[in-house]
């Protein structure tokens, strides 16, 4: 069902509610795995992966056309994690979706691991573009969409980028290009969690009004609460459908560290070691009582 391009025009209300609660459970599970992964590794980013967990759940369990057993399927939808430092949430989604065993998450950050600290397309099944240096993902996504058009393929490209990442000049080079050429089948999701590494967005480089900026660059802009599945999922579905006409940006309002009280909206939890006690607390809050994997 996930492979289908067809959108059920008018899902009935009960089906929709079930679907939302299933995806909420996937997002919860992704958060749980992020905490387990970072705790196990002893290092890692925390806030960014937690804010984007719901987007991962929606993309990997509803939106993207994929074949986990054939990761290089030529016409798969592409996903690029431009904010590569948050990749533990992506790995969790890939594992949950069956690209590799959940057990592999214990290897993240280790020498010889297929799961690098930042995404590596040569090492990890399901990763279509390496990233880690912020600001490059949208350009790569535009290139993929151009490749698709050139080859007459109908796959879509989704790029997830940070709000702090929007400080990078290349982001605006790419946005200008995408808007000017009205690149189709391209969706940019901006994880607006109001924090970057060392401070708040509005006190570092204020992006407001981000939606108007993107509209001025000739993008279609949608907004949603990116931590609320009942808002996020229909917004992503709309973005996907509208992208047939030209580039679409989703300004996804989130809380950095969402789902874990001590990390929520706290700049110091951008990246930090999770102690055993805090891991236990976080997992409890996430409804994963058992500290074991």
């Amino acid at each position, binding site marked *: 069902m996930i492979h289908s391009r067809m959108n059920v025009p008018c899902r009935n209300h009960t089906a929709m509610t079930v679907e939302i609660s299933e995806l909420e459970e996937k997002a919860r599970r992704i958060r749980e795995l992020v905490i387990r992964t970072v705790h196990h590794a002893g290092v890692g980013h925390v806030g960014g992966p937690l804010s984007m967990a719901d987007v991962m759940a929606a993309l990997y369990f509803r939106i993207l056309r994929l074949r986990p057993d054939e990761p290089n399927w030529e016409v798969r939808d592409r996903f690029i994690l431009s904010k590569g430092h948050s990749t533990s949430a992506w790995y969790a989604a890939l594992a949950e979706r069956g690209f590799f065993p959940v057990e592999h998450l214990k290897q993240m950050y280790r020498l010889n691991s297929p799961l690098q600290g930042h995404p590596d*397309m040569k090492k990890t099944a399901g990763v279509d573009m390496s990233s880690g240096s912020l*600001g*490059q993902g949208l*350009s790569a996504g535009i290139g993929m969409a151009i*490749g698709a058009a050139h080859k007459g393929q109908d796959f879509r490209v989704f790029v997830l980028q940070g709000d702090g990442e929007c400080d990078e000049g*290349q982001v605006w080079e790419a946005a200008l290009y995408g808007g000017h050429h009205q690149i189709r089948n391209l969706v940019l999701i901006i994880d607006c969690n109001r924090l970057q590494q060392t401070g708040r967005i509005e006190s570092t480089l204020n992006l407001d009004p981000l939606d108007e900026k993107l509209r001025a660059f000739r993008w279609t802009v949608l907004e949603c609460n990116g931590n609320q599945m009942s808002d996020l999922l229909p917004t992503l579905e709309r973005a996907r459908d509208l992208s047939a006409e030209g580039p679409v940006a989703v300004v996804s309002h989130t809380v950095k560290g969402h789902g874990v009280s001590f990390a929520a909206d706290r700049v110091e939890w951008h990246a930090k070691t999770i102690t055993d006690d805090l891991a236990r607390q976080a997992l409890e809050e996430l409804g994963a009582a058992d500290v074991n994997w």
Partner: protein
Amino acid sequence: MSIGDRIAPRVAFGEAITELGRASSDVVVLDADVSTSTMTCIFRDAFPDRFYNVGIAEQHMFTMAAGIASTGLIPFVSTFACFATRRAADQIHISIAYTGLNVKINGAYGGVAVGQAGATHQAFEDLAIMRAIPNMVVLDLCDAVETRAAVFAAADYDGPVYLRTVRCEVPVIFDEAYDFEIGRGYVLRDGSDVAIVSSGMMTPKALDAAAQLESLGISARVLHYPTLKPFDRGPLVRAAHEIGRFVTIENHSVIGGLGSTVAEVLAEEKPSHVRRLGMQDSFGESGDDEAFLTKYGMNTQHIVQAARELAKE
């Protein structure tokens, strides 16, 4: 074209990618608003649907090329060598080299000869930067024949390639029989007193210097290295054993380019006397190409002089 014709390699490049584009619809070309300088405008006019002018946005261009390559197409990406390798170094490193994607980078206007534009446009470190990046094949091309051959060889090779072309006219020194291969060094002239090692537009000067040296009673071997990486150690090491005296000449800084490569290889394989001609760790300036090369000690007469001094030792 025949031996001695003066042809700008940038024109040869533009014509070669167009010929390539005719043979394969998988070839696409990107440029950052300098296609009338890099000569990718020849391709643009022949295949407008496969030509992407990204505007003056080099960082975006190189990453976008990586995205295009990831779908199986072969992008040739052109801009001035200085902007490619300095401004977009990170994009080339991460999006193209680290991923190993099949992107071909044309560093046009490589080195000193940028037509009076001066220091901001002169790339003396492009080869050094590209050489230091894993996965990157690094070519410094000489004449129109070699440039054309290299374009086709780069297209056949699966992975990132940096092809450096120059703006000025370079006399054709190769004929149709030239058997260009990536990763090969060539002995263009045999000799026994001193070896001149050159690449790119400096090789015709190296050959001229060798001819002048002969009339002075000095026998000079000329080694031509269009590929800086991977480097073909064989011809160099043989010359080290047979001659042991080297002059290197390059359109680049002596730090990190051909001279450095030669010194590194010889230090490991057979320590020898080496004199490195090229930019001596300084910025450039405006000036007529030949006058510039003369001021900075990089012209034929300097090769002759260095070789004579070495041959006496």
